[in-house]
């Protein structure tokens, strides 16, 4: 007897180990074989853990919310929450409207929508994750008491999130689309190519698409409704890359929703199929970028005629004064201008009757280039009042023969004639 006991004692731990392992393996095999979920144990565990997690979450949420509500933002937070809820619902309705408006059966679908709201949903908050790090699942704070049933789709206005995997009285477990065991039937926007979304390999791919199918980068994929979970027409994501693979096309997708990072979701209690929109998804409208700024080569660093600095203003003023007094800076024998004189005001430009008050920018004549200090004097040019100067051509023209050359400093100065126009040197030959 003692020998048997001693032998049992030496193998006791090993026997217990084998028994415990075998019992668990058998139990596991029973679950896999029958496909049944051991609900009792799960209900106990969930009932024991989720209230505590709920309390912790509520404490955290309320503490932070209290601080923000009463010390920082008063009631703005509550209003923001309400507006966000309304906005989410409106965005969902907006998606539905836009999708239906693109179809031919416009009036019929509108009538249908009036009688039946699209995708009746209930909002839920994520309160905890799954205990399996490799499995993607979360718990939400709505259960069977809120009308949630197993298998219902979970979405956000941006995209799909997952499906309800288990329902308890006060909470539900949502299996995310990023889980390795989850697949979603999807359909492309342009070619209506059907495939199966699989996000289990660390990135999302659309499987079962033939190489011959035409899929472009940036193309949207929507739920096809074939999985009987998600209603047809919910946005899923955009194509990041589509390359031919071994037999099937390798299409990678960027999910439009954030299944793992979202805090509030919508559980679809009653889904309504929608048509795949032919236009781009309205939520993803991005502001058209501004055109590239003009290069320095185009305008020589600054727009002609525009005043940039105080020095420019002063320069423009002196140039106007010089022009009004027929003085050319840098030229010889030009009278000293009166810098204290006020420049003559510009006469208003008379608009033609019936012509638009504002002409498009591209129809404006080319601006007159600003005169440059040291430019040659054109004494023979007609004396025109300031503001009505003839328009300079945009193309560089040959120098007119009346232009007086500028002599370098220190060169002998010829005596000017007492009367008559200033003699002018022959101009350079015209350039072709």
């Amino acid at each position, binding site marked *: 007897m003692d020998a048997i006991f001693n032998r049992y004692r030496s193998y006791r731990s090993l026997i*217990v180990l084998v028994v415990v392992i075998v019992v*668990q393996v058998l139990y596991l095999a029973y679950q896999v074989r029958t496909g049944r979920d051991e609900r009792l144990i*799960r209900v106990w565990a969930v009932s024991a853990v989720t209230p505590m997690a709920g309390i912790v979450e509520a404490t955290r949420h309320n503490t932070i919310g209290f601080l923000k509500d009463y010390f920082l933002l008063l009631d703005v937070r509550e209003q923001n929450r309400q507006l966000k809820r309304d906005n989410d619902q409106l965005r969902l309705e907006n998606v539905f409207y836009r999708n239906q408006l693109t179809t031919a059966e416009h009036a019929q679908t509108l009538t249908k929508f009036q009688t039946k709201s699209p995708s009746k949903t209930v909002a839920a908050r994520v309160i905890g*994750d799954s205990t399996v790090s490799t499995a993607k699942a979360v718990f939400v704070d709505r259960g069977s008491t809120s009308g949630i049933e197993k298998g219902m789709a979970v979405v956000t206005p941006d995209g799909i999130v997952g499906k309800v995997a288990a329902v308890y009285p006060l909470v539900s477990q949502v299996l995310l689309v990023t889980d390795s065991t989850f697949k979603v039937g999807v359909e492309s926007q342009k070619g209506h190519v059907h495939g199966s979304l699989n996000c*289990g390999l660390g990135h999302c791919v659309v499987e079962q698409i033939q190489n011959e199918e035409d899929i472009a980068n940036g193309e949207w994929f929507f739920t096809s409704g074939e999985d009987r979970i998600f209603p047809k027409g919910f946005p899923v994501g955009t194509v990041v890359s589509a390359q031919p693979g071994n037999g099937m096309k390798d299409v990678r997708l960027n999910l439009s929703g954030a299944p793992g990072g979202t805090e509030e979701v919508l559980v679809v209690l009653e889904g309504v199929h929608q048509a795949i929109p032919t236009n781009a998804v309205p939520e993803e409208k991005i502001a058209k970028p501004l055109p590239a700024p003009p290069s320095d080569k185009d305008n020589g660093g600054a727009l002609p005629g525009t005043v940039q600095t105080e020095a420019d203003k002063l320069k423009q003023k002196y140039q106007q004064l010089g022009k009004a007094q027929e003085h050319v800076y840098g030229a010889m024998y030009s009278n000293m201008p009166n810098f204290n004189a006020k420049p003559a005001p510009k006469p208003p430009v008379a608009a033609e009757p019936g012509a638009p008050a504002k002409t498009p920018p591209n129809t404006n004549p080319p601006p007159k280039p600003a005169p440059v200090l040291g430019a040659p004097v054109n004494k023979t040019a007609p004396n025109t009042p300031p503001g009505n100067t003839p328009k300079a051509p945009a193309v560089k023209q040959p120098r007119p023969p009346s232009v007086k050359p500028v002599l370098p400093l220190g060169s002998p100065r010829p005596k000017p004639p007492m009367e008559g126009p200033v003699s002018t040197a022959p101009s350079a030959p015209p350039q072709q």
Partner: protein
Amino acid sequence: MNESSDHLLRSRRSSESLFSRFQVVGLVVLTLIAVISKFYLPRLIPSAVWLEVPLLLTIYFGLMRPDPVPALLFGAFVGIAEDSLSPANLPIGMYGITKTLVGYFAASVSQRFNVENSLIRLVLCFFFYFFHAFFYWVMRRALLQQLVPFDPRETLLHGLFNIAVALPLYLVLDRMKVSQEA
């Protein structure tokens, strides 16, 4: 009174001390905290999804108890508690089996090594984390035919992250143990 009856009394006494009311309550509370931490912490800190506090607790319990039987039972308890909160498409028992083995091996190792040394503890902790992740992946692949990716390099990094957490956690648990004994 012969030798066998003495042994019986001794083992009963030890089992009584092991499963004293205080210890059982303490273990249940610790398990609950560990499971909740895994359940809730990733909502606040996303990278905490790789933190395996229940596993660290199982390893600690195994290392501190030279007897493998309570260690493996504790591992099974913690594992099944985790399984209960796992996604419904994963049957109960996956973590239970894995943690049962971890608890058993940890207790077996503690019979041969001086596990009071922090360095040895951390090395063992790192090893058991990798074993746990690998065995779980094998079971999902073999028993459930689920193709779950397994990246050894990433797992090793997560193991380092876990032993960084294990170091202060074990110090706190040591303090609690000393205060209980006092």
